[in-house]
């Protein structure tokens, strides 16, 4: 597969390490009432869609960026690639 890195252009997916669903960015609040349940759902449950999937890839033998790649799990077609840091900020993550 080829991943269209937002900064570097097309790169062989072999340079990347895959983590999983991009929802892993949305780490719950540790002080919430239901923190343990929220962490359970966050860490263990997956939509696992057959179709568009937003997922985290780390450019391990590359520029060390984490990317959020939108990829179709039926066809492997990639429709969007973003820097995970931008995505995280857009989803309200900060310090």
């Amino acid at each position, binding site marked *: *597969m080829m991943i269209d890195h937002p900064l570097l252009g097309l790169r062989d*997916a*072999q340079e990347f*390490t*895959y*983590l*999983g*669903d991009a929802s892993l960015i949305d780490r719950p609040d540790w002080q919430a009432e239901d923190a343990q*349940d929220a962490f*359970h*759902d966050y*860490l*263990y*449950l*997956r*939509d*696992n*869609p*057959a179709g568009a*999937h937003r*997922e985290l890839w780390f450019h391990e033998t590359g520029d060390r960026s984490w990317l959020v790649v939108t*990829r179709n*799990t*039926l*066809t*492997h077609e990639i429709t969007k690639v973003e820097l995970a840091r931008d995505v995280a900020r857009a989803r309200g993550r900060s310090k």
Partner: protein
Amino acid sequence: MAYSGLRIIKEALSGHRGWKPAWRDPEPKAHYDIVIVGGGGHGLATAYYLASRYQTARVAVLEKGWIGGGNVGRNTTIVRSNYLLDGNQAFYNLSLRMWEDLEQDLNYNAMVSQRGILNLVHTDAQRDAARRRGNAMILAGDDAELLDTDGVRALYPFLNFENARFPIKGGLLHRRGGTVRHDAVAWGYARGADRRGVDIIQNCEVTGFKVENGTCLGVETTRGFIGAGKVGVAVAGSSSRVMQMAGLRLPIESHVLQAFVSEGLKPVIPGVITYGAGHFYCSQSDKGGLVFGGDIDMYNTYAQRGNLPVVEDVLESGISLIPALGRVRLLRSWGGIMDMSMDGSPFIDRTPIDGLYFNGGWCYGGFKATPASGLCFAHLMATDTPHEVAQAYRLDRFRSGHMIDEKGQGAQPNLH
């Protein structure tokens, strides 16, 4: 009609006109006591045991395509019981014992061949881990032997002992492990179930569950609604897709595992060899092809195909271990979709919906589990209590922190 050598002779002498269909193609009925979704190994086995051991009268297996087309039709055929952890041991111990009696039980030769599985050891730490595992196996009633380098050499003199990056320091041998002709398992169970009245309905895709007041009443299918007292889902690879129709999210991701077969060869490898320093395991089929595999492709996918990097990785490992295979040709590769679970262990459990049961999360170890999985799932559905060897396979075990993590990789499915 019972199969036997005599029967073959008789048929041969009468033009083979007497052979009957191995299973019927019945029209679906309006209602069954139990409907199994998924005509793969586990679904067919479940139906067989429901009919044969739990005397469930009206059972149907619904299969989207052709039976045996799931992972029972695309695996590397290995059966073993070399587990370390409590929740797994008794289950796989039972499964291997069931394999040993399977053919006589089914009257179908699935070529259960116990030629031994050897897991190689390359470091002292691996030997420590192998010893812990081997002892766990023996304590659980399975067989294990710890071999040193010479012991391995005696079994497989052509492995790379002289020029290895990671020298072979020994291995854990599980003599009762081996291989089974995978397609025959599906067909044997199908024939056995069919003979006991189970309706096996091919080309019948489930498109939804009918749930009222928290109870599952049946399934919508491409061949109409089919009512059911209970519905059991055994569709590993597609579990998330199917259970999503019932509104459930699972601790599962779908990944592809590639497997490979070489051109046919005169006998090379009697048993199963697993490399300990790379991703490669290999056996030889009765037809002569080397059957081998390695790691999954690592990314979520439902496409039954993989990519080159994993192929190369598997072969780098393979040739590093067995340099004599360099000129043997890889004939065919294929990809199977795995239900990779969050701790590498499966689920056989009720769901929050009454009357809906779930069997899945087998990662790439589902084939060897087929008999016990079928029996335990049948037991659960017939009695509404978990079978004693499958009590740990609960869907809520992550909530309570009771993971069954043989590899110790944590909540990352692609590492199991």
